[in-house]
């Protein structure tokens, strides 16, 4: 059987090229690795090597030919013991088929608005809400810090595969004391101090999850996770998809996020929108202790990689938490933390406290505000946002973070796309100023959102200013 030598594709984008020079002539014997010709692509001149051994039969495309399409038969190679003359020229058209096949199948791909996989999954999932707390359940006051610690401890008792690693999580008891007492109960095998090498230990945690464990990777703050973001995005989030569903990566990356107090620009940033833009990640950013506990437990049990964003300024705040054997809350579900009928204020994390404060002020002015805590940033609970908008017809988003390409922008897009008919006023966003966070107390104060600005935006959409 004669071997057809076809014009090779020598780069991902090459469609045609110039056959610059033949380095063999008809009748030459060649072996694997011999250079047959030089071909000019759009990028470079490349040598075209023989893969087989044999004798060069007919050369069908002379040197100097430009615009030779990939797949065109350029020469024929007669195999060992074969008559060179019988290696006749085949129909070159046959080579065109694969490329065309690919084009036609491309055109079958769905067009128009393509929902993300997560949205689609969320849409097909049955609606869930927080489980009812049985009447008479004892309520205890816990700080967010304690609630997070309790969540980790309970899950570590429940599942041997769960462990915590990070900087100062063990002997120091946590840089922010979130892992306090865990070393004592679970020992150094499961509560692991790491060197200050975020990229490395985020990768090790991710690999351990791929290997079947349930790591909780603590970042001292998410500012330092930027050194590790490659593993969060490229290794943890994408591998399940790239492996056709074979590779699970049930890891939780957690730690404080957003502005703390007077630590300036490099230590004060909200990464919620960054991670929430990545398909394959779950992103949770709770406000109160009950949500922190219930959602962290759910995150640890999730089969998917979770980015769990806490807030340093909220760690010490106390909230009521139901004393249940197993307090687990649904991921992907917002919560109405204050019911109202005049205007909706959507927020998450520390912004929820400010939104509630604004709602109190507004109540004194006769404006009845509803406050929605998103709790999960990906997948975003569109239904709850839109249902609240349908009820109040006015919406403000309060976000402790930059305005550009933010969760606020995303919520505005949702309202435009699917809630337009319900809007009685343009949606407004209340975000931090679009500057790196300054150190000086007065400037920092000016840069961050506060309850006053949220109330002002609410008045504006109610046309009450």
């Amino acid at each position, binding site marked *: 059987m004669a071997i057809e030598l076809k014009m090779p594709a020598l780069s*991902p984008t090459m469609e045609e090229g110039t056959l610059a020079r033949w380095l063999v002539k008809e009748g030459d014997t060649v072996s694997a690795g011999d250079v047959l010709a030089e071909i000019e692509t759009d990028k470079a001149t490349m040598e075209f090597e023989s893969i087989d051994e044999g004798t060069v039969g007919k050369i069908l495309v002379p040197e100097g030919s430009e615009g030779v399409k990939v797949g065109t038969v350029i020469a024929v190679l007669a195999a060992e013991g074969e008559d060179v003359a019988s290696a006749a020229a085949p129909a070159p058209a046959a080579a065109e088929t694969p490329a065309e096949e690919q084009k036609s199948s491309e055109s079958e791909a769905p067009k128009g608005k393509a929902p993300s*996989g997560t949205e689609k999954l969320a849409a097909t999932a049955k609606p869930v809400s927080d489980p009812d707390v049985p009447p008479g359940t004892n309520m205890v006051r816990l700080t967010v810090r304690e609630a997070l610690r309790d969540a980790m401890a309970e899950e570590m008792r429940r599942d041997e595969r769960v462990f915590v690693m990070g900087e100062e999580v063990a002997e120091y008891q946590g840089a922010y004391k979130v892992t306090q007492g865990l070393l004592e109960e679970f020992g*150094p*095998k499961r509560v692991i101090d790491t*060197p200050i090498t975020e990229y490395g230990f985020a990768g*090790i945690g991710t*690999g351990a999850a791929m290997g079947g464990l349930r790591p909780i990777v603590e970042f001292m703050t998410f500012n330092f996770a930027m050194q590790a973001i*490659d593993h969060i995005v490229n290794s943890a989030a994408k591998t399940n998809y790239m492996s056709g569903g074979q590779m699970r990566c049930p890891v939780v990356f957690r730690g404080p996020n957003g502005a703390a107090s007077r630590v300036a620009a490099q230590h004060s940033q909200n990464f919620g929108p960054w991670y929430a833009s990545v398909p394959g990640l779950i992103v949770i950013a709770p406000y109160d202790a009950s949500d922190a506990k219930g959602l962290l437990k759910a995150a640890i049990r999730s089969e*998917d990689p979770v980015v769990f964003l806490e807030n340093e300024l909220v760690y010490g705040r106390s909230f009521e938490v139901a004393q249940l054997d197993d307090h687990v809350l649904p991921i992907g579900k917002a919560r109405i933390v204050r019911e109202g009928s005049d205007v909706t204020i959507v927020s998450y994390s520390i912004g929820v406290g400010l939104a509630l404060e604004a709602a109190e002020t507004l109540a004194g002015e006769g404006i009845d505000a509803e406050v929605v805590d998103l709790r999960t940033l990906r997948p975003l609970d569109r239904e709850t946002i839109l249902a609240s908008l349908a009820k109040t017809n006015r919406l403000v988003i309060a976000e402790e973070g930059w305005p550009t390409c933010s969760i606020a922008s995303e919520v505005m897009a949702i309202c435009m796309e699917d809630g337009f008919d319900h809007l009685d006023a343009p949606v407004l966003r209340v975000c931090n100023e679009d500057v790196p966070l300054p150190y000086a107390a007065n400037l920092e104060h000016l840069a961050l959102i506060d309850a006053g600005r949220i109330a002002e935006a609410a008045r504006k959409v109610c046309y009450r200013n």
Partner: protein
Amino acid sequence: MARAARSNAAKTKRNSSEDAAASSGNFELRSLQERFEKNRRYKAEPELLLHLYEQMLLIRRFEEKAGQLYGLGLIGGFCHLYIGQEAVAVGLQSALQEGKDSVITGYRDHGHMLAYGIDPKIIMAELTGRQAGISKGKGGSMHMFSTEHAFYGGHGIVGAQVPLGAGLAFAHKYRDDGGICLAYFGDGAANQGQVYETFNMASLWNLPIVFAIENNQYAMGTSVKRSSAEIEFYRRGTAFRIPGMDVNGMDVLEVRQAAEVAFAHVREGNGPVLMELNTYRYRGHSMSDPAKYRTREEVQNVREHSDPIEGAKADLLKLGVDEEKLKDIDKRIKAQVAEAADFAETSPEPSPDELYTDVLVGSY
């Protein structure tokens, strides 16, 4: 997992206290190399060598076919061929314990999968982006996995597989399952910062991992001399007290012998080993490599004098294996690869619904 847990059998024999061991400077970077140099080549029965030969030949023919299919436009994007480096994956993986150990590598991954006995049909079908591919056509050349074979990829970011591999080793140790992780990376990846973060933690925590640097002399088009201050890569673990081994990666029996020494050391709980496998890639970095950074003579010289498959063939003939038998193997492999290519060309593309599957595992 704190420092107190760190133990090194060799050291504790000589020192009563760990602190004394750490400060006495008796760390033996070359201890494994010395053991290896006493006997550099594995004494393989003809049957085993035949098996290794067949595996290397399968990789060679498979990769040549992949190169052809790329030329025909049936394989897209990046496609990094393993031609020339076959002895490394075949020699190392032949010494692993199946069902116990794990493997992870970078984007030049076809050969490692074939050396693990994964069906060439589903690998080739992944290269052509078909539903029957090992990643349902969603990963492509650089992103292939087989959890069934404890092959954890197939990673496209240079160096990322190193900490991920340490994570797999961490899981072996955590579960105390007796397994080790073999993490491959190239001379290019060996300059990434995360590699050294991982060396530090792997050594500190005594993780059961073998770091295998496949030094094919070029990081894309940059030769090791132009990119690396220390080109003896086996020394790169010294600062982390990781013993190194300098291995001829063009000789499958030498690779196998080195693996025996390294794997035993790691399996006995002595912490990581760093192996440098000196090898050579015949083809370009990827398919679109114009190869202007080296001479044809250099490539031909390696092909003619150090080819791992020709070397194994000569050994087999010396052992008295019939040449006809080798021809039969050659024919069988050609047929197997042709079948894989046919399968990969004729299998259907993924259904449009697959666009949305496997983004998340759970429903939220």
